[in-house]
Structure formats: structure tokens, C-alpha cells
């Protein structure tokens, strides 16, 4: 077993209730964060990890209040730095299972640098990025995922900066597990949480989340029943990329080096794009696609194996100790050039 595997000891049988803390939840009524909290609490018993070995770490934002509501260990830290704090914790305590909860501002503005590095290092932890395309806690300024021209308090005539796509960003950073899910789809969230939590390395999950106060229905394209049917592309490993209503299925295919949407029945089966989670290059193409011209990919874009940062650090330590024994300060102090004065 690698030194970084969590939950070595057997977990008792938990229920959702075991993961609910005694704190009053303080999000606005109707906020998408409630559904995410409920999904996470519901998933926890299925992870088979003793509760005391689970830690939730967050930055600052509405989303980052999350740890207070989980009856696990938790640390609500400072704006943007949760990935760095979690990295230090993993290096100190590789047997713990760590979740990082962050927002689009926390994780991609002020904490963008740490997000980049935690992903490239492939630290073994699960990152849940609540993307509501707005700064909720500071009352509604546009965020780095807001669309160009977004009108908010800080941009009365529209924002001038182009948005970042969290999935493309994560893949660009070398993430080894990247998935997208939606706050209004509890079973899918449940499935993605389990997949991400089981991943060895950094599991990055973008959760499309509704801020009903400052950016209501920003994701309506995937909430609205009609539109969801038209655009949602459920990614399933080994299955072709098909979407759209049953009577008018569409296929996402590659034409040359360009993704294209075509009528499924117009193309031979051999040209279909079969989703392969181990193909990072394909995931990068998928990550950029969005409605209205393309479907909205939902599910696991990629899941690949790569060395885990803290495993390597601990292996170096264990090697040094097994080869030369544990450090001894008294010996070190008298090593090298010394001289005696009598």
C-alpha cells in the first residue's frame, strides 16, 4: 500500500446524519450549496473511511463555509489558499482523506496560482469547485468564470475580461482527474464525488452551482428541462459521445482536427467519438465545448494515473531512513570538521 492511502482501518456503518454538524447552515434559502452539502453528506458513508480521518479544507466565500456543516475535521482558512494548506496537511499526514471546497473566485482568482500547483503536483486530495460564475459572499461582483460583458455592481456596463473555463484550466495544469457535475442532479453529484474521492491524486470536480441571489439561473441552459435535453452530454467511458432528444440524437465527432456536431443517424458508427477517460488530449478538446454551438459535457473528462507528490516525498524519507537510520542530532553536530580546545 502506498503511504498515502486513507482509511486503512475499517469504517463503521455510517448514515448521512453522522456527517451533519450541529451548526446552523447560513446560506441564502434556495442556494445551490444546500443540495451540494446534502449530496456530500449522503455520499460520505459510502466512502468507507472512518469519519475522524476525513478533513474538509476551504478558503473564503459562500461555498467555503462548507466545512462548518460537516461533522468531520474541518478548517475554514483564508481566501484562495486551501490547496496550499491541504498540501501541507497531506505531506504531514498522508493517511488522511482531504476534501478542498472552493469557489470560482477563491479557486481561480486569488487562489489560481495554488490551484495550478496542487494540480500539477497531483497531491492526493479531492477538490470541489462550486462554480456560480459570481462572487457570492462579497455580494455580487463578476468572477473569473463570468461571461464577457457580464453586468454586475462592479461592471455596470459589462465586464471586459474573458472568462476562464475551470475544466480547461485544470487539464492545462496537468490534472489527473477532471469531472463536471451539476447541483441540481443529486445522483450524478453522488457518482462524481465517489469517483473523485477514489482517485489516486488530485480529483478535480467542477460543480455548476446556482447563486439564486446574485446570479440566478446562470446555468439555466442545463437546468431548464427542454434545454438540458438538447445540450447535456453525459460522458461515459467506452460509450460514444451522443446527446439530444431520443428522436433526434446528435453525435459529437471529430472532423479532421475539429469537433463537430452532426445528426447521429447521418454518420456511420465507425466515425463516432468513443469517450476514453485515459485520453487526456481528447479531454482537452471536450473541456472547451459548451452550448449553444456544442453540447455541455457532464461527467468524468479524464482519469489517469501519475505519481503523487507526497508519496514521492515520503518515499525519499523512508529510503533515507532505511539506508542510514533515523537522524541523530548529536552525531550531526560532531560530524565534519571539528576541533578540540582544552
Amino acid at each position, binding site marked *: 500500500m502506498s503511504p498515502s492511502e486513507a482509511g486503512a482501518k475499517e469504517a463503521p456503518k455510517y448514515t448521512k446524519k453522522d456527517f451533519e*454538524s450541529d*451548526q446552523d447552515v447560513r446560506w441564502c434559502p434556495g442556494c445551490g450549496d444546500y443540495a451540494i452539502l446534502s449530496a456530500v453528506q449522503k455520499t460520505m458513508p459510502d466512502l468507507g473511511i*472512518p*469519519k*475522524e*480521518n476525513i*478533513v474538509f*479544507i476551504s478558503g*473564503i466565500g459562500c461555498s467555503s463555509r462548507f*466545512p*462548518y456543516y*460537516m*461533522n*468531520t*475535521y*474541518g*478548517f*475554514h*482558512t*483564508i481566501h484562495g*489558499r486551501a490547496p*496550499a*494548506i*491541504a*498540501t*501541507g*496537511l*497531506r*505531506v*504531514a*499526514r498522508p*493517511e*488522511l482523506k482531504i476534501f478542498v471546497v472552493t469557489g470560482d473566485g477563491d479557486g481561480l482568482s486569488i487562489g489560481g*496560482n*495554488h490551484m*495550478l*500547483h496542487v494540480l500539477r503536483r497531483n497531491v492526493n486530495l479531492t477538490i470541489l469547485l462550486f462554480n456560480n460564475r459570481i462572487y457570492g459572499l462579497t455580494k455580487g461582483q463578476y468572477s473569473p468564470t463570468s461571461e464577457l460583458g457580464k453586468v454586475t455592481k462592479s461592471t455596470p456596463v459589462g465586464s471586459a475580461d474573458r472568462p476562464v473555463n475551470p475544466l480547461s484550466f485544470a487539464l492545462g495544469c496537468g490534472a489527473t482527474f477532471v469531472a463536471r457535475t451539476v447541483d441540481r442532479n443529486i445522483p450524478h453529484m453522488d457518482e462524481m464525488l465517489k469517483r473523485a474521492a477514489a482517485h489516486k491524486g488530485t480529483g478535480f470536480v467542477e460543480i455548476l452551482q446556482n447563486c439564486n441571489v446574485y446570479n440566478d439561473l446562470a446555468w439555466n441552459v442545463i437546468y431548464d428541462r427542454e434545454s438540458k435535453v438538447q445540450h447535456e452530454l453525459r460522458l461515459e467511458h467506452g460509450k460514444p459521445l451522443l446527446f439530444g432528444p431520443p428522436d433526434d440524437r446528435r453525435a459529437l465527432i471529430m472532423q479532421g482536427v475539429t469537433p463537430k456536431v452532426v445528426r447521429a443517424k447521418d454518420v456511420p458508427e465507425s466515425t463516432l467519438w468513443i469517450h476514453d477517460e485515459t485520453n487526456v488530449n481528447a479531454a482537452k478538446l471536450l473541456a472547451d465545448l459548451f452550448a449553444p454551438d456544442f453540447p455541455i459535457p457532464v461527467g468524468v473528462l479524464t482519469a489517469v494515473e501519475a505519481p503523487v507528490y507526497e508519496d514521492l*516525498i*515520503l518515499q*525519499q*524519507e523512508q529510503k*533515507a*531512513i532505511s539506508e*542510514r*537510520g*533515523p*537522524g*541523530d*542530532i*548529536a552525531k*550531526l*553536530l*560532531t560530524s*565534519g*570538521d*571539528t*576541533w*578540540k*580546545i*582544552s
Partner: protein
Amino acid sequence: MGQIATPATGAEKTRTALDRAVIRFAGDSGDGMQLTGEQFTTESAWAGNDLATLPNFPAEIRAPAGTLFGVSSFQLQFGSQRVYTPGDRLDCLVAMNPAALKVHLRDLKTGGLLIVNTPAFDKRNLDKAGYATNPLDDPTLAERYRLHKVDMTGLTHEAIKDLPLNTKEKDRTKNFFALGLVSWIYTRPLEPTLDWITKRFAKNKDIAEANTRVLKAGHAFGETAEIFGEHYAVEPAEMTPGLYRAMTGNRALAWGLLAAAQRSKLPVVYGAYPITPASDILHELALHKRFRVRTIQAEDEIAAVTAAIGASFGGAIGVTASSGPGIALKSEGIGLAVTAELPLVVLNIQRAGPSTGMPTKTEQADLMQALYGRNSEAPVVVLAPATPGDCFYIAYEAVRLAAKYMVPVLVLSDGFLANGSEPWLIPDVTTLPPIEIQFRTEREGFFPYLRDSATLARPWVRPGTPGLEHRIGGIEKQDVTGNISYDPDNHDHMVRTRAEKVRRVAQEIPPTSINGPATGDLLVVGWGGTYGSITAAVEQAQTAGKSVASIHLRHLNPLPPDLGHILREYRKVLVPEINSGQLVRVLRAEYLVDAVGFNRVRGLPLPSEEIYEAINQLLGSTP
């Protein structure tokens, strides 16, 4: 120019005994002056002298050859009595090129020994150093100093002409000629350097042979060349018996952390982002994985401090280090550790600022930043080592206090302490105070902010402990329960409690030791790397019959409990600092004493001569 003195055979030379000597090797950054100085230091330590060193090098990695800003130097003072500083004025200057002469000549005493490498004084190098004519041709130079023009380059090549090395490689060994020559002048043993050469160049026999021969050639040149009529001996100093080693401040900090890791039986997680002059601590710690020190080269200073905080939350010892600009970036993180009440050690190796300032030059101007440089009321413990070797004890103490009081501890070292070295009496580590860590495991009556009555520390709980799951964070919390609280009175209470917790660290501070009379005309108060300069100046004043004492603060927050009383026992108080007056303000504010500052901010240690003058001035007499 370029004349070589013909060796005189058999002439016995006179040897004069000296109490102490200050010498400086100066040359181009490619001339190996740091190595030369370090080897001379080792030789002097072998000879049983007390000593102090001052390396000084350009920030540029490879500054253009021959330029004034590319000059690198290494100074040391060694003596048969206590040596507190690397010295102010030079007894001997070795200048390997015109630029080195130009930069350093003003520090040489009139009548001092000046040794120059003549072939380097060619047109190109003279131009680069901005000399219109060759200064060696100016007769006043030889009138004012004991000038020795030596063709080091030529003699070096001569000594190794048969070795299969190219001209550049041969050229590069000439620093050993200088080292051999100066070793002869001051009667230093060559053995440690010969040993070093053998070990260092074990894989390259020709280079080893070349360096050995050139070193000996330099030595023999001193002995035989007519120009050196006399040489000197500096008798061993009276030092506490025991086993010694050379210690630099940065290594001592690193080893202090290793000692703390071993004694606490906890891993150290060290987060750092490279910055001069703190990087060497990271380099050193990365060598010692066997002590369970886990180094993280973080993406920035913020990640470095927060990774350390994450580790502390996990029950390891979180440590981070930087210099001024990086410490500025860490402030928000330090504030989090203050309110989360987690142990954290932050090492600040101060350098000249603001902003990038002068990265390789020393300063003491981050005291206010350490004490107050965070938003809101965010008190931390602040310690400062007095000498390079003291860094070992301070790092260890920082870990001990951080864990015992669940509080961040800031250590203020500086560029001078970091790179300077001193002969260090190796301590018996079993005499260090224990670091007893007690993680809370008991469920009964547990609250995250329940406090120890003596220290006010909250319990340290390792995640993974069943039944003690809890949440902490940066939001204000209710005392005891740790639940989020916006209650006004609770906030006031918590602000006071966090301050009181730091204040209680005063119970750990030993009585202040006073160098001099317990009452008198003048007390000199110092902190940090100025210890040597201040002590030398004060002892000089005491020898001159002045009623002067000094104390040196290692604890800057909280201040020693006996400090207020001591300050009142003297008519006047002088506070020398390498800043524009920081500790002096604190003392005036805390104790309402009319303390006076002595401040120079030149990126260099304070010259003890100037402190001596300031003492006399304040006492109202001329020296």
C-alpha cells in the same frame, strides 16, 4: 610593474605576536574569494583563535569580470582574546584586481598590509575600475600602506607549468597562492586546507595537485621572498574547553529545527520559496530527510506559510522562512495561525529593503513588521538570535514555544548572521529543554478552545483522533466552544486572550544577563546581529573606565519581565540598530524611558568604533 622579488635564501624572519588581526580578501566574483576566506577561517579555528567572519558578495550571479559591482570579499577578525565582530578597519587587504582595490582600500588602516596581484592591473581592468592611471605607480600608495606587489598569476603558472591543465584552469588556482601567502604571514596551519583540497578534488587529481602546489608556493613565497621582512603570530584564545565547529547562522537555524524534530518526535514540514539570504536553510534541510523534515518548495511565499499551517493543523511542526519581501506576503497567513491558535515558526532572514532593496546586504529593519505588521490585533512571539551559533538555540526555542503556547513564533535573523560564522562550542543536546507535545485524545469535556490555565493554550488535536472531530477557521469564534461568534464582548475577550497568551511566554524568559555594572551612567541595549559590535564597543568603553553596561535582547515579544527595572538603573540608555530606530521606539513606548537611538542603515554591520563614539558622545565626553 610586474617585478618579482627574487627569493632570498635562508634569511630568518622576525615573528611578531599580535592580539588580533582583521584581514580581507577581495577580488572578482570569479576569483574564489569566499572560498579563500572560508579556508583561512578554518585554519584560524585550528590555530585556536576566536574569530568572526563577514562574507560580502554581489547579488549578481556572474557579475561582469573586473567591474566595481562585481567585487566579492571575505573579511575576518581572529584573535587571542574574545572576538565579537569581523572588525571595522583592516590590518591587511588582499586585492586581486584594480576594482577590489578601489572598493576596499578606504577600509585599510594607514600602515596596513596591502597585497596586490600585479598582472591584474592591466589597461582593461584599470579602465573597468575607473582608474585613469595605475594606482600602483602612485608613490603615495606605498607611503601610506605597506604595499606588496606580487605577480600571483605568474608565480601560480610557474608552480604548475607541467600539469595538464589549460590556462584558464591554472589561472583559477591563484586564490590558493594568496591563501598560502597570507597563511604564512599570519602563521596559520596549512593542514586543514590541504585536507580540504584532497577531499574536494578527490575525483580530479590534477586540480587537487595544482591547488596543493599553488598553496605551498604562496606559503614558500612568503617565507623566502625578501619583501616580507616580518610575519605574525596570534596565540590561541582562552576559550571554554570543548569540541568546536564553525557555524553559520543559516546552518544553525536548520540544525536547531532538526534538533527540535528529534526531541519532539514530530515531523517538521518546511515550506519555503527561494529568496536570498534564506534559501540556504531550505538547501540544508533538504539534505536531512532522516530527521523527518519534509521540505516543500512552494509556488510562492503564501503557499509556503499556509502549507506550514496545514501541517501544524495536522499535528506536525509547521515552519516557513523567507526574507522581508516574502514575509510581507505571509502576513495574512500568520494572522490565520494567530486566530486558529496553531503552532507555527516563521524565520525572517532580514535583508536591506524596502522592496528588493539590497538582497545580499544585511539590515534589522523588520522589527516593527514582526511586532505589528499584520491586520488587526495579531500578536506573535518574536525572538532574535545574537550570533550565528545562537541561531541553533533560537530555532529550537521557537519550536518549543510555538508548540507549548499554540502560537506563531517569528525569528528575526539577518544576512550578517546567516552567512557569518563563528567557532561554536558544540552543545550536549541532552541539556536542551525537552519539547513535550501532548495531543488531546480525551473526548470527555473536549472543546476546541478550552484553555490550559498556565499557558492559555488551546488543545492540539490531530485529525484522525476519533470523537474529537471539530472545525476551526479564521472567523472569530466563541472562546471554549470555538463556534463562530460575532458577539462584541466575546471578540474583545478573544483579542485580549490572544494577547495575554503571548504575554505569558514571558514566564519562559531567563533573567537578563548584564554585561557590566548593575547600575551606572549608560546602558546600551541591542538585539539581533549587532551583539558583537555592541559588546566590543562596550568593553572598550569599560576598559577606558566608563560606567557602561550592555544587555542584548533575544526576546522581543514579549520583552523580558525584568527589562523595565534594568532600564531605570542607568542614567542614559543607548539603542544601536541597523534601522532608523525601531527597538528604541518600543522601549520608549513601553517603559517611558528617554532611550536614544544610534542608527546606521548601510547594509553593513554596525562598526563598533562608531558605537564606541556614540557611547562617549552620550556620556558627554570625547573619546
